[in-house]
């Protein structure tokens, strides 16, 4: 941030800054286009990201006029159910902040509790600091952040990690951005127990569940990426699969879709192999309805591994 202000020449008070041009020049257009293209749904998330980008651009314009801009707190918390794209967005976030010049390197360091918390007394602080050092100049993404705080064990070392985190989040706002992620209800409890965190995290972004249509689209996207396609009947079967799967426990949005498709690929491979006939390219890329209909979901079971006994 400071380096940024140094580099920018102070403009005359009469001069006008074209924010749209700023936006275009910063290369953010491509990032947001990509975001729209690659991430299906998530409208509130995208809106929030644009708002943050706007704030940062305006701050940059203010700095140009010598208006004192306190560097904004950009620490965020992402809450949402499993498989709603929190990690993917965090990665994009690192890039967006890098383009805007708010983090110098734009790398993402993903950690969970065991990367931060030590196993014995005096182990936690160096471990946490090590991670923080690595994340400086980029974004630190703490997945399942609520595990850091274990109220049932008062001697838990998680508290120590939290204190160090809070200290660095406050004192070195220019050097790194921390993103906490986790399920909404547990994160809520985590923030209740650690008011310091709540006040230091400026942006709380909630990731909504995907609709059926969006999940189907995600499936199509995943298959296209792997050079597969669904036959017309398979498409129908897959729509029905999603309808049924959503209602079952352990549904993890995009991740469940990906797993289901992985299993469909497995069945397709087996089918082709068992047929014992020469295969064409068309055979190799097409997933048929039967590959999907074999799924336990259709017989009232849960399509997960290990199978859950009823």
């Amino acid at each position, binding site marked *: 941030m400071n380096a940024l202000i140094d580099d920018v020449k102070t403009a005359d008070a009469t001069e006008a800054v074209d924010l749209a041009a700023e936006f275009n020049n910063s290369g953010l257009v491509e990032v947001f286009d990509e975001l729209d293209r690659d991430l299906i749904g998530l409208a509130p998330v995208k809106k929030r990201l644009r708002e943050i980008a706007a704030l940062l651009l305006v701050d940059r314009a203010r700095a140009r006029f010598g208006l004192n801009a306190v560097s904004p707190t950009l620490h965020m918390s992402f809450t949402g159910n499993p498989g709603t794209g929190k990690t993917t967005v965090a990665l994009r976030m690192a890039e967006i902040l890098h383009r805007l010049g708010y983090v*110098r*390197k734009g*790398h993402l360091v993903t950690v969970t509790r065991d990367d931060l918390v030590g196993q014995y007394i005096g182990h936690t602080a*160096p471990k946490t*600091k090590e991670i*923080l*050092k*690595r*994340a*400086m*100049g*980029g974004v630190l993404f703490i997945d399942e952040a609520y595990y850091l705080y274990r109220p049932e064990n008062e001697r838990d070392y998680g508290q120590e990690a939290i204190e160090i985190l809070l200290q660095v989040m406050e004192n*070195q706002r*220019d*050097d*790194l951005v921390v993103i906490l992620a986790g399920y909404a209800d547990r994160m809520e409890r985590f923030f209740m127990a650690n008011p310091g965190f709540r006040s230091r995290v400026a942006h709380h972004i909630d990731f909504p569940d995907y609709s059926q249509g969006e999940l189907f689209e995600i499936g199509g996207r995943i298959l296209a990426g792997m050079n597969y396609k669904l036959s017309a009947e398979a498409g129908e079967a897959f729509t029905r699969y999603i309808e049924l799967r959503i209602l079952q426990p352990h549904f993890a949005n995009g991740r469940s879709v990906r797993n289901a498709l992985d299993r469909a690929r497995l069945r397709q491979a087996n089918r082709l192999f068992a047929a014992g006939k020469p295969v064409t390219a068309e055979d190799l890329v097409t997933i048929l309805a039967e590959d999907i209909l074999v799924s336990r979901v259709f017989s009232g079971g849960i399509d997960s591994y290990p199978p859950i006994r009823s």
Partner: protein
Amino acid sequence: MRLTQGAFSFLPDLTDAQIAKQVQYCIDKGWAVNIEFTDDPHPRNTYWEMWGMPMFDVKDAAGIVFELNECRKAHAGHNYIRVSAFDSTHTWESLRLSFITDRPADEPGFALERQEVDGRAIRYTTRSYAAQRPEGTRY
């Protein structure tokens, strides 16, 4: 007497911003940056105490400046602190840059001792005035 070891030692002390820029240069070159300290300023004292591990995986100078500040909290005022950058590429495998970032307020300097041996031959020894006192109480 001002200790002149490593790079930039004839310049005024570097500011934190300047240190950060030098460190960033080293990181961008892929060198591992280390922080070292000592209270024995003899020029042949090559291996100083290391402050923590070499920082192989730090991508931004802020991480190293953070660690440098930690080291200063513990050792500044009565130790020299230096930053060194190690290049591990084959055929280099050695330090590429080393500079002193912190020095004690008062540097008494060195004495030159002449030992007369074998007739008129002379052997020279430098001895740091500071190192005459035991470790930890030198500055």
